[in-house]
């Protein structure tokens, strides 16, 4: 029996164009969590990420016949998802929501700044949220989703050099912002200071 899980995206997409729902389902399973993570980190809301992901896959199904086989399926689906996410972010800018959860996050981030021993991952997530959108998108695709620079350039429709510079910029911002927290770890790794619980 044909094992669709091992079929490449393009083969599955050919079957989807013939109306084969099972191949479509395989593609959904293959991409849903990866895309969900990127959307979630862009929008900072699981519900909205879920809605946009539904919308993304719905569009894939509806526009399946217009898919161009010269391009990777991953590029196509990421482009759809990110366009939807960017539209949503643009909409949010127009209608300024007072999000109490966002407010709570900001407050928590402020508190964590004071407390240098705060969990690095929590701090990092808070700082990632604060990155400017264009840097954040490039950074997420590169460092969270492991897309190649070439793929990111195709998805975002910008030159390769621009992608590299955006990723570098995002990393530099994070480096500056997380320096106070990580300098201590550096000193510890070098053995120049002793952890307080040893003293």
């Amino acid at each position, binding site marked *: 029996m044909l094992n669709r899980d091992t079929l490449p995206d393009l083969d599955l997409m050919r079957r989807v164009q013939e*109306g*084969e*729902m*099972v191949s479509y*389902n395989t593609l*959904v*399973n293959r991409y*849903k*969590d990866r895309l*969900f*993570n990127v959307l*979630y980190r862009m929008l900072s809301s*699981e519900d909205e*990420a*879920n809605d946009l*992901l*539904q919308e993304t*896959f*719905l*569009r894939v*199904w*509806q*526009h399946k*016949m*217009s898919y161009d086989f010269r391009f990777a399926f991953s590029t196509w689906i990421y482009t759809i998802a990110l366009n939807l996410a960017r539209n949503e972010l643009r909409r949010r800018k127009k209608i300024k929501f007072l999000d109490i959860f966002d407010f709570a996050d900001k407050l928590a981030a402020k508190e964590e700044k004071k407390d240098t021993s705060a969990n*690095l*991952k929590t701090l*990092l*997530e808070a700082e*990632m949220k604060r990155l400017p959108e264009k840097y954040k998108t490039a950074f997420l695709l590169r*460092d*969270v989703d492991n897309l190649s620079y070439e793929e990111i350039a195709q998805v975002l429709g910008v030159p390769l050099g621009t992608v*590299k510079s955006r*990723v*570098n910029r995002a*990393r*530099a911002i*994070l*480096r500056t912002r*997380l*320096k106070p927290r*990580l*300098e201590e*770890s*550096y000193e510890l*790794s070098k053995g120049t200071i002793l952890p307080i619980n040893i003293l």
Partner: protein
Amino acid sequence: MNCRKVQYYLSTFSEGSFSSDKLSEVEVHIRNCKSCEREKFILEEILVAVRSLPTKTTPDDFNLKLFNRIYAEQNNPSESYLPTPESSWIRRPIGWVSALATVAVAALITMVFLQRPVGSPDLPLNSPAYSQVESTSPVSTPSGKHVGNRIPVSAYENIIGVSGSASNYRATNVSQVRTLRLADARVESLYVEMMRRLGAEPYPNMLRADTRYYEMRSPFARTGSNGSPLLRNAASTISY
């Protein structure tokens, strides 16, 4: 190479995508400069932390909701707010012909259903599915939890109604194969959704009964091929 330049290159350096001469230049500098070594350490820590951030997963019913939306969109294209490539059919004469044919088939299906007794559309009285519908014995979930004396028949009517319309596949032609596939998955997804709304867990016996019923109606079963591949495929799209 000065510190500023090295720190500018750190990001590329951390990915190991440098030309060998530049690479050794940066390496030598970092070895001899504490400040740049610290910056490199910080960046590496960040990248490790980013890659180990907890990953989010989609809700369990993600596929179910997605497929329901697709069926809803296909059944009510006028309510769709998304422009579909297929929507240009109005401009094609052949589109009108197929639209008229669809209307005729839909009318035929409606007539057939209207003539059937209420509560058992297109279902033989001796079928296992029917006996489940009519059963008044208490319903238990696989976990043994008592759900209630009886799930309203109307719930099953809807489910069977869907599979019933798919069984009219026989009345149509090969071009309906796609419709049949959609209907296959829809039978089950509607069933699961219905059970959720009723506050009951999906009832496996009933599902199997529907499955048998469906296989019986499937053209693949009638032609003697190996079971109902479409149904098996459809079942794989539903996750509990």
